[in-house]
Structures are given as structure tokens and as C-alpha cells.
């Protein structure tokens, strides 16, 4: 019946009921008349007529059932039936829902992050009007990798250059510069750092931010010589001030300097950096308040500000670029760094400006994790495919098991479409339940994942808006629907294709089974094995990379070392007193119980800062500027002993290395080999170029083994260490390396007290060196953990599929196996028979998978370290792992097959 008739029937359902009642009443009345004519009493006639008609109500239902909606009205019934029949096979239901839930959940999790980090526009009004400036025409690193907005060195400007741009530009209706920093809220003792941003006066105007309390900055707030004023982020205001309105006008101390709270930004504003949000915003001019004379407001080669503007009406990104290029020359000419070499100065003034869209904001997370997220997305998509294959296989088996039931129902007149609909309803129920489970998985998964990728450093917590949005919801529903159609429709279509005849034949089981559905099941398992091999191989590479990096000998022993960064700036001590206060701090700490050895240094390995300089060596002519580049650190006596970095030749710094004596340096092995080949560098000299005139010569007194400097990934760089003891005017910040017995964090309280006794206003940051190393491997760890997880899930799903198909095959071949055993087949042979079948499936899957994995491996190649995407060992181990697990999955049904009792099996016929 056409669908509109059905709808009409529902609408008319009452009328139809009435019609049927009237018709039956008429029939009974006629019958009663007849019966009475044949001499029955009226009462008896009524009784007989009714009896003959059968139960009136049942009859009405029957008649009506034909009329009204098998379709609409029984959908609820179908759903009820589906739920009931699923409850009858809980294992099937749980495995299916779990497979779907995992697949959908993993996809939604990764997509939530992908959406928040990569796809979503910045949550500000008209984000499409935003554009950022850069002085580089390309977005590629020398390695050819695309860089995210605001992550390239060419996206940063000096303050003098910014002032030129601000005053000359006519491309933006509003333009702002901003630079990230961190502030210390504590007044002494252990530091309490919060992320902050220096912003130009038009910052909030550019983003069209409204105040939640008080007022926001205007250009009048950002003028040289300004007093300290601060705008709080909404979340900081909530956390620190309970969102009280009287916070405005109060004073907070940032790194020891008083700042008056002018206002609070709107709740929706999370700043231009997706994933990291500043807690406080202070005007750029206030850098002079915080840093005093060391501010970079007039510094012409301190690149720390990013520039972002709102395009003026009728100006597009291209036109804006052209307008800014027009002001480039005068802007650069006014701001040439005076101490640069002439050729660098000439290159400087020829730079231009480029403009690119910033509608999705900047993001360090995006540049760190963007490609990783895409790789993970591909991984979870594979998981979903495997899960779907699993579900399809389960549904197929289930449909097969109901073959007879379906055949009988078809034979007694059930419509094929009716059966299809019922099977499909079951799939929909499964998919919806799976989607709900998936959303729950995603809810917790995203939060767990965000915790996992928390950025090291001050702005530790990742601030992302992970609320469910419509795009995400649509995506989940899409995935669920896709799953239903793929997993539900096909088995349903197959299941009802049986002819009653075939089904009847199937009743009289032959000895050999038909293999039609079986081939499909096997094909699905082959696909599963192949897909999971791809994930297992990728996991192998990524876990291997993480293992290689974490097992790498960094050239020092991080375990047991506590870094304590000591900041004397708050003590207001005169520069000439710094060295002696450092000495005092160092002597107090070194004597503490539990500390084996102590040293101090300017920089720490794999930390956030680095120092390089060009060196000049007699007889060495650098080919390029980079060729003469050396990485530096200033360390105390005992640094190498504390770090357990071996001294290969020469000596450590000692008491003879004082400010007045000749400058000395210790170099690493790589430095020695680079500049002096195989000859020993001890006793040789070098100078630093970057001072005018050249520095006095440094004499090399020792050579140490290579140690990681900027990151574990970089190949070891030529490094030179100079003596802290020779620096007559050390900076106010230095880091102590404290090697402790056992867990280094246990000495923190004692160290804090000891330093507090030296001077109460000293600020300290503690961090175990091992954690600093671990933080630097965070992305690798996340990829290793997640790919390992994905690989395991994929493997588990594939094995489940393999087990299902094998058990099913054994069950169906019971008769055949019985005959074989009866005819004298040895049980071991039966086991071999079954395992052979498993072997074929796995072998094909592995071959197909290896080819696919090789292609996938080139995609993850940029993440790898110490392993090649073609490394045969990884493929072999992944295949072996799969093989072993598959063997175990096959053994259970094989063992069951061997135990088939021939008499029982044959009697069943």
C-alpha cells in the first residue's frame, strides 16, 4: 500500500474501526436472524452467532491489522521486539554495542579536538575579518613542513617596527600587537606563575571584546611611561575573585609590581591563541614597569610581538597585503638594528609585509598537534571500519542463525520488506545505543586526551571550548548512520534473500556446507586483519620512536636531579651583590642532607631557552653564518659531575677560574670534531663575534661527551660551556642542579627553607630534570599511547571477528567433522584443518595489510625518530604479533572441533 494511504489510514483509523464494528454487527445480526428462523431462541442464537464469529475484539484487530500500518504503528513494536531479542543474546548485543561505541566514541573524541583546534573559527565577532602579519612570503620551514599561523619566527615583530606599522598602516580598521609572557603572583619563595599577555591599546577593540566588568584598554592606556594597569580574563576573575564586581579597582602584584585592575574581558573571549588562554592582559608599555631598564620597547632586534588586525571594510586579505607592502620600506628603514652587520642591515630594509587570514586564530597546539591529530583521525577512522566489519560479521552470523526462522516466516507469508524492516530496526537500535555509548566515551575521552596533551610550562592547562556543538553532533550522527547502513542493511538484505525452498533444503543438512555467506564473513575478517595490521604497524613505529627517544642517552643522567631556578630580581639587590648572594644560596643548599652534589648553570638542557653565538677561530673560515654557530651555556664547577656528563679530556672548571684570569671554556665532543677534526681541542682558543670588538680569547681546558641541548630529537649540536665563576656580573636568574638520593622532589621543602633563610624575597621554581625531559617528549608520548591504544583496540576487534567466524565455521561443519573423525581422521589433523583455515585468512590479511601499512607509514614518517618507515623489523613483529594472537583465537574453536563426538554429530542428522 502506498505510504500516503497508510498515513491516511492512521488519520482515519477511528473511522475504520467504526466501519469494521458496524460491518461485524451487521453480520451477527443476519446470522441471528437465520438461526432464529431455524428455531433457536433469541438468546441462544446470539450466543452461537458470536461463537461462530470468534472473539469479536480479536477479529476486529485482525481485520484492522490489514488496514492500518503494519508500517507506522508497528515501528514501536519492532523496536520493542528488537530490544527484547537483543536482551536474549546479551553477548552479541554487548560486543556489538561495545564495538560501535568504541568506534564512534574514538572518532568523536578525536574529532572534538580536531574541531576545537583546527576547524573552528575564533570565538569573536566576525572572525573572518581577522588577519595577521608576517614578514615571510612562505609558510614552509626549510624542511618543507607547513607551519601554523603565529608559529613561525617570521610572525614576530619588534616593538619599534610595530609602532611604525601602527602609525602608517591603512589596511586594517583596527590593529593590535601582543606578546605572551608569564607573571609571578607570589611575593617570594616558590613562584606561582600565570600566563599573561602584553597587548597594545587596540587589542580588545580589534577582537570586538566587551567588558564583563569595569572597562577595557584603549589606545590611551598604551603610552610610554604608563603606570601598571591590568585586564583580567573572565576565568581568572572567577577563580581568583569569585567574579565579584568589586575586584575592579583593586591592586594585584604581578612579578612584584602593583597593577590596578581596570576591568574584566567578556566570558567568551579566550584570546587569539586556540588552546592557551592568558589570565591577565597588561599594556605593552607596562613592560618598562615589570622589567625596568631591561625592557625591549626600543629594542630593534627583539622579536616578541605578533600583529593581528581587523580588515577595513572593502579590503580583502590580498589588498591588505598590497597596502602593507607599500609601507614596508619606510617602516624598516626607521627601525634598522644598529649593531647588525652591513649585509644583514641591507637585507633587513628590503623585507616586506605579508597578510594572511587569522579567522581560526593562532595555536601552538595546532602547530604541535595539528598533523598528529590528522594522523590520529585516520587511525580512528580505521578503527571505525574495523568495528563496522565486526558488527557486520556479527549481524551476518546472527542473521544466518535465524535463517530457518526467517525462512519459515517468509513461507507462511511474511513480507520480505517486513522482515527487512525488522532486521533494520534491530540495527538502528544497536547503532543508536552504540552512538549513546560513543558520546559517553567521547565525553570522557576528550577530557582525558586534553589532560594528556597539557602543554608543558606556565600555560600548562589547555583551555579549549569542548562543549558539544552542532557540527560535532552532526558528525556523530553521520558516523552512526553510516554504521547502520553498512552493517545493518547488507546482512538484512542477504538474510531475506533466502527462498523458502532453499531454507527447507537447508533443513535437511548435507554433509558439506555451502560457503556463500561464509566467504563474505572471511572477506570481512581479512579486511579487519589488514586494517588492524596498519594500526599495529603505525603503533609499532610511534611507540618505537618514543622508546628510542626516551632511551636515548642524552649525555647526562636526568633521574634524581632537581632543577631549582632561583630568581633574585625581587630582592632589589645591587648588581654587584648578586654574585655573592648566589654564592650564599648555593652554599646553603649544597650542605643540605640528602643532596649528593650540586651545581648551577645559566640554562638547562632541553629547557625553553637557548643561547648561541658565532665564534671566530684562527684558521677556520665559516661558509655561512650558521657554520660558525655554537650553542653556549654558563656552568659552575661540578656541573658535569652533577649531571653525570663524562669529561673526556682536560679538566673541569675549578677555583683558579676567576674573573681576572684568562677566559676558559669546555667544549663537547661534537664541537671539537667540527672545528679541530681528530686533533684535541684542549689548549686551543676561540672568540665570540657578536660583540664589537671581538671578545678576548677563550682557552679550551676540557672536552665533555655530547649532551642534548635544545631537544632530544636534534642531532647533537656543537656546544661550548663557559665558567660561571669567571662572570663578574652574573644575571639575577640562575638554575641550581641538585642531585638527590632517591626522589628529588623530597628535598624541595628543605631547599625552599634554606633559600628563604638566605633572602626571603627570592623566587624559586622547582622542576625535576626527568620531568623536563618527559615534557619535551609529550607529543611523542601522546602519539605512542594513543596509537598503542588504537592498535590494541583494532587487534582485539579483529581477533573477535576471527574467533567469531572460525567458531561459526566449526559449528556449521560439525557433521563434516564428525564424519571425518568417524572415518579415522586424527584429532590433531582436525585441529590443523581448522587452524589452516585461520592461517589462510590471516596470511591474506597480513599481505594486504602490509602493503597498506607501508603507505600509511610514509604518512607518519615526520613523527618518527630512530626508525625508518620501511623498517622490516616493525612489519615482521606486527605480523608475528597478529599471527600469535590469531593462533590463540583459532585454537579455541579448533580444539572444540577436535572434540566433536562423531556419534553425536551424525545422530543430529
Amino acid at each position, binding site marked *: 500500500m502506498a505510504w500516503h494511504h497508510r498515513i491516511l489510514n492512521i488519520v482515519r483509523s477511528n473511522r475504520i474501526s467504526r466501519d469494521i464494528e458496524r460491518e461485524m454487527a451487521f453480520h451477527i445480526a443476519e446470522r441471528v436472524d437465520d438461526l432464529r428462523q431455524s428455531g433457536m431462541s433469541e438468546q441462544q442464537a446470539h450466543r452461537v452467532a458470536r461463537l461462530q464469529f470468534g472473539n469479536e475484539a480479536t477479529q476486529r484487530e485482525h*481485520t484492522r491489522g490489514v488496514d492500518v500500518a503494519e508500517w507506522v504503528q508497528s515501528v514501536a513494536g519492532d523496536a520493542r521486539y528488537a530490544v527484547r531479542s537483543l536482551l536474549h543474546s546479551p553477548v552479541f548485543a554487548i560486543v556489538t554495542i561495545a564495538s560501535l561505541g568504541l568506534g564512534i566514541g574514538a572518532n568523536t573524541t578525536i574529532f572534538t579536538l580536531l574541531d576545537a583546534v583546527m576547524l573552528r573559527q575564533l570565538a569573536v565577532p566576525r572572525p573572518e575579518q581577522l588577519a595577521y602579519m608576517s614578514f615571510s612570503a612562505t609558510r614552509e620551514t626549510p624542511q618543507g613542513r607547513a607551519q601554523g599561523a603565529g608559529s613561525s619566527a617570521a610572525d614576530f615583530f619588534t616593538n619599534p617596527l610595530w609602532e611604525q606599522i601602527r602609525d602608517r598602516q591603512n589596511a586594517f580598521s583596527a590593529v593590535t600587537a601582543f606578546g605572551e609572557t608569564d607573571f609571578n603572583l607570589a611575593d617570594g619563595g616558590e613562584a606561582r606563575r600565570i600566563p599573561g599577555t602584553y597587548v597594545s591599546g587596540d587589542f580588545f577593540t580589534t577582537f570586538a571584546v566587551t567588558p564583563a566588568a569595569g572597562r577595557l584598554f584603549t589606545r590611551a592606556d598604551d603610552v610610554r611611561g604608563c603606570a601598571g594597569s591590568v585586564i583580567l580574563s573572565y576565568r581568572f576573575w572567577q577563580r581568583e575573585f569569585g567574579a565579584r564586581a568589586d575586584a575592579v579597582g583593586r591592586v594585584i602584584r604581578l612579578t612584584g609590581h602593583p597593577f590596578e585592575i581596570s576591568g574584566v574581558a567578556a566570558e567568551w573571549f579566550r584570546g587569539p591563541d586556540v588552546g592557551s588562554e592568558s589570565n591577565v592582559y597588561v599594556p605593552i608599555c607596562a613592560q618598562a614597569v615589570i622589567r625596568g631598564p631591561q625592557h625591549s620597547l626600543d629594542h630593534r632586534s627583539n622579536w616578541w610581538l605578533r600583529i593581528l588586525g581587523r580588515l577595513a571594510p572593502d579590503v580583502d586579505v590580498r589588498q591588505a597585503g598590497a597596502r602593507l607592502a607599500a609601507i614596508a620600506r619606510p617602516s624598516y628603514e626607521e627601525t634598522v638594528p644598529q649593531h647588525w652587520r652591513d649585509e644583514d642591515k641591507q637585507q633587513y630594509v628590503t623585507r616586506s609585509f605579508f597578510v594572511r587570514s587569522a579567522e581560526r586564530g593562532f595555536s601552538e597546539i595546532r602547530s604541535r598537534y595539528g598533523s598528529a591529530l590528522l594522523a590520529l583521525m585516520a587511525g580512528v577512522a580505521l578503527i571505525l571500519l574495523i568495528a563496522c566489519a565486526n558488527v557486520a560479521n556479527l549481524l551476518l552470523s546472527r542473521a544466518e542463525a535465524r535463517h530457518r526462522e526467517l525462512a519459515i516466516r517468509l513461507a507462511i507469508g511474511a513480507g520480505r520488506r517486513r522482515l527487512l524492516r525488522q532486521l533494520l530496526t534491530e540495527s538502528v537500535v544497536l547503532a543508536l545505543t552504540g552512538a549513546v555509548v560513543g558520546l559517553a566515551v567521547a565525553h570522557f575521552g576528550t577530557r582525558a586526551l586534553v589532560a594528556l596533551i597539557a602543554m608543558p610550562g606556565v600555560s600548562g592547562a589547555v583551555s579549549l571550548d569542548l562543549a558539544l556543538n552542532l557540527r560535532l553532533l552532526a558528525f556523530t550522527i553521520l558516523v552512526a548512520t553510516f554504521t547502520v547502513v553498512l552493517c545493518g542493511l547488507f546482512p538484512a538484505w542477504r538474510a531475506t534473500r533466502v527462498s523458502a525452498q532453499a531454507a527447507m533444503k537447508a533443513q535437511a543438512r548435507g554433509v558439506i556446507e555451502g560457503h556463500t555467506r561464509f566467504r563474505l564473513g572471511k572477506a570481512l575478517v581479512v579486511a579487519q586483519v589488514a586494517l588492524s595490521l596498519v594500526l599495529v604497524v603505525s603503533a609499532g613505529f610511534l611507540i618505537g620512536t618514543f622508546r628510542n627517544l626516551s632511551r636515548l642517552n642524552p649525555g647526562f643522567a636526568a633521574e634524581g636531579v632537581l632543577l631549582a631556578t632561583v630568581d633574585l630580581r625581587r630582592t632589589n639587590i645591587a648588581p654587584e651583590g648578586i654574585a655573592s648572594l648566589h654564592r650564599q644560596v648555593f652554599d646553603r643548599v649544597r650542605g643540605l642532607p640528602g643532596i649528593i652534589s650540586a651545581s648551577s648553570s645559566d640554562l638547562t638542557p632541553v629547557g625553553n631557552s637557548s643561547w648561541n653565538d658565532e665564534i671566530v677561530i684562527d684558521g677556520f673560515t665559516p661558509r655561512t653564518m650558521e657554520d660558525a654557530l655554537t650553542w653556549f651555556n654558563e656552568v659552575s664547577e661540578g656541573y658535569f659531575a652533577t649531571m653525570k656528563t663524562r669529561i673526556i679530556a682536560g679538566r673541569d672548571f675549578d677555583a683558579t677560574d676567576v674573573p681576572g684570569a684568562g677566559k676558559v671554556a669546555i667544549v663537547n665532543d661534537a664541537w671539537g670534531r667540527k672545528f679541530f677534526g681528530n686533533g684535541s681541542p684542549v689548549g686551543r682558543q676561540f672568540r665570540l663575534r657578536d660583540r664589537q670588538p671581538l671578545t678576548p680569547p677563550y682557552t679550551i681546558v676540557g672536552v665533555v661527551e655530547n649532551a642534548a641541548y635544545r631537544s632530544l630529537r636534534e642531532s647533537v649540536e656543537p656546544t661550548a660551556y663557559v665558567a660561571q665563576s669567571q662572570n663578574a656580573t652574573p644575571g639575577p636568574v640562575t638554575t641550581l642542579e641538585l642531585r638527590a638520593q632517591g626522589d628529588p622532589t623530597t628535598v624541595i621543602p628543605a631547599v625552599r627553607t634554606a633559600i628563604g633563610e638566605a633572602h626571603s624575597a627570592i623566587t624559586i621554581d622547582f622542576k625535576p630534570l626527568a620531568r623536563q625531559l618527559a615534557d619535551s617528549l609529550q607529543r611523542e608520548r601522546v602519539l605512542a599511547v594513543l596509537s598503542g591504544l588504537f592498535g590494541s583496540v583494532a587487534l582485539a576487534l579483529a581477533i573477535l571477528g576471527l574467533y567469531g567466524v572460525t567458531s561459526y565455521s566449526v559449528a556449521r561443519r560439525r557433521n563434516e567433522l564428525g564424519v571425518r573423525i568417524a572415518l579415522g581422521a586424527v584429532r590433531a589433523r582436525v585441529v590443523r584443518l581448522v587452524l589452516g583455515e585461520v592461517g589462510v585468512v590471516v596470511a591474506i590479511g597480513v599481505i594486504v595489510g602490509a602493503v597498506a601499512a607501508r603507505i600509511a607509514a610514509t604518512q607518519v614518517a615526520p613523527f618518527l625518530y630512530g626508525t625508518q618507515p620501511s623498517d622490516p623489523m616493525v612489519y615482521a613483529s606486527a605480523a608475528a604479533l597478529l599471527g600469535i594472537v590469531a593462533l590463540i583465537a583459532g585454537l579455541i574453536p579448533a580444539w572444540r572441533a577436535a572434540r566433536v563426538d562423531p556419534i553425536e554429530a551424525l545422530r543430529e542428522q
Partner: protein
Amino acid sequence: MARGRNDILQGTLALLVLRTLSVSGPMHGYAITSQIQMVSADLLRVEEGSLYPALHRMEQDGWLKSTWGVTEKNREARFYSITAKGRRQLAEEEESWSRLTEGVSRVLRYA
């Protein structure tokens, strides 16, 4: 309700109803049962429980159409009549029926 040997074979009911209506013109359900019973000399009896669902199904399939009318006893009844599509269906069913009976009788005769 006793199930006698004269219960109507599954599938032949439509044939009987169509035939009856095509010969006798519009009839209500009760009249159809009486007619079949009478013409078959009580050999066939139509059960009410099968008749009405069958009538409604045939109406949906477009073989019959129905209207409400008044009987000679002044009762309201639903009168069924055969449609053109119903006549085509009847021809088909008669054809297959005669083939079936011929087949069966041949078997009975020669097998």
C-alpha cells in the same frame, strides 16, 4: 467453532469470493458466505474469521471496492463489488485452479 472437512482451502477463498461477486453483483459479507455455502451445496463453508480480513485485503489490492448501503431488512451493510482489476485476477486464479485440479485428477487417475 468446529473445523469440518469443508473448511476452505487456503488461497482459494479469494477465488471463491471473486467468482461469487462477478456472477451475482454487489453483495455484503454475510450474503457472500451464504451464497458460497448454498451454491456449493453446503460442501464449502466460509469462516467469518477468514472472510473479512480477506475482503479487506482484496479491497486494498484493488480487486474489490465497497460502499455502504441498506439491505431489504433495512439494515446498514457494506456492499462489495468486483473491479476490473478483480476480474483480471479472477481469470488468472480460475486458470491456475483448473490447472491444479487437472493435474491432481490426472495424478489420481494415472498414478
